[in-house]
């Protein structure tokens, strides 16, 4: 269900990059919110949120003991750190694009 709550209220996140692949961790502040986030942040919905970056694949991994998820996205960096024309060639700011998602 869509609501007016943004992910930013409930979780924190960090991007890492390797070549043209990034991972974004999403970590619940409160363990009690974790099941709700797992339900809301499906691979399909996350791919849709990043549609303008045209990910060729989005894969989600669950880490229940850390109340965290790890999302791996392919081909969203316009070539990766050595090729990208983006100011943010690593995609480091994309974790906060993720956090702007409505859940």
């Amino acid at each position, binding site marked *: 269900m869509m609501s007016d709550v943004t992910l930013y209220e409930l979780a924190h996140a960090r991007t890492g990059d390797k070549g043209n692949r990034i*991972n974004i961790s999403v970590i619940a502040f409160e363990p009690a919110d974790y099941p709700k986030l797992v339900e809301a942040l499906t691979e399909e919905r996350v791919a849709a949120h990043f549609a*303008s970056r045209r990910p060729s694949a989005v894969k989600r991994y669950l880490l229940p003991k850390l109340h965290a998820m790890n999302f791996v996205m392919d081909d969203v960096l316009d070539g990766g750190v050595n*090729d990208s024309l983006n100011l943010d060639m690593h995609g480091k700011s994309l974790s906060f694009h993720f956090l702007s998602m409505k859940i």
Partner: protein
Amino acid sequence: MRDTILVGCGAGFSGDRTDAALPVVKTLIRRSGPAALIFENLGERTLAQQQLSKRNNSKMGYEPLMELELRPILADCLANGITIVGNFGAANPTAAGQRILEMAQELGLPRPKVAIVSGDDLSDGHGKELIAQHLGEQFDQARFVCANAYQGAHEIAAAIAAGAQIVVTGRVSDPSLTLGPVIAHYGWSIDDWDLLAGASMAGHLLECGAQVTGGYFADPGKKNVSGMENIGFPIAEIFADGTCLISKADNSGGLVDVRTVKEQLLYEVHDPSAYITPDVVADISDAEVAELEPNVVRLSGVKGHPRTDTLKANVFFDGGWLGEGEISYAGPNARARAELALQTLKKRLGMLHGLELRCDLIGVCSVFNDDANRMLDSIAIGEPTDVRARVAAQHLELEPIEALLREVTALWTCGPAAGGGVRVNKRQRLSTTSCLLKREYLPATFEFL
């Protein structure tokens, strides 16, 4: 003496704060016992840049900040038995090691035992042949710049066991910098997978410096961190069972809690059950973090699987040139004037040089944007009063890039109205690919200088 080893981090990338290591060293001395200090200075790009630098001058090609990093702490480390391990050797570990010997002499210190780890550089001879063979038609001889394989921790450990006080490496995997001294301390075997994995993840937490101690974590009002101007760099106390405690330099700013540790634990991880390093395949599926006291967090539950029979190598090719230019517009109708500037540049550069431009409106949509402007085109944003237009392009030849810089500069007088603050910049690009090579073809070795 406790049966543990402390490993502190003095730098987390090439360009990190050079005054961060001294408080870490002072803390290691105060806590006493076996200790090491690591410097992680190599990104995917930095090594290739140092390879280019070495081509121009055979005495260069190591981390340019190495001297600033080592000078404040060298005497304390040598006097207190703190082993220094750094990948600041970059493309030229031997030159880096020789410079360290000179520094020690300049500082009036006894000659340290400096070990050089090699075997990572595949830019010439046998290594280059391997890369060419592996990449086949993808290998562009004319544009090949360099290739380096990620080596592991065991040669670092062997060097320390043989008496090295300072170990200088080129490309090794980041966690191996920490794992090396830990293996040397405990005498772990090559197949102690759970132990190697635990200490590797400790190294993973350390390898980006302040990223685990609150620096890259801070978000005011949401994730508050005090003392940002004086962030303490991290220290791991690693136990014989492979678990560790993460803390930071005493009397410093920053924060270590379960949130900062979780963010860094997952940083650059893909499948959490298979974090591949040259030394082990670490599995953090069941890892747990717990805050034991303020600024002390325990990591446990890391498992290990046998290492792969391949090593990853990054291969770099000359990718031509990247050029970029920016100009600001402010006040009424700023966004429309900035967009007119971008359209003008697109038409002129497309017409004259066939260049395809990436365009951003900084202050409206830039870093979330992609090369095709899909996001910029789709968002309606209130009228901004301060916008910076940016264009960027790449080309194999320099001349079209020079033309881009000239065209942005020409906006000073050719308009739109009231554009100010032109900045233009160009740099050489490196294209990269990576491959996996059988490790038996890539033996690493160490030698003393």
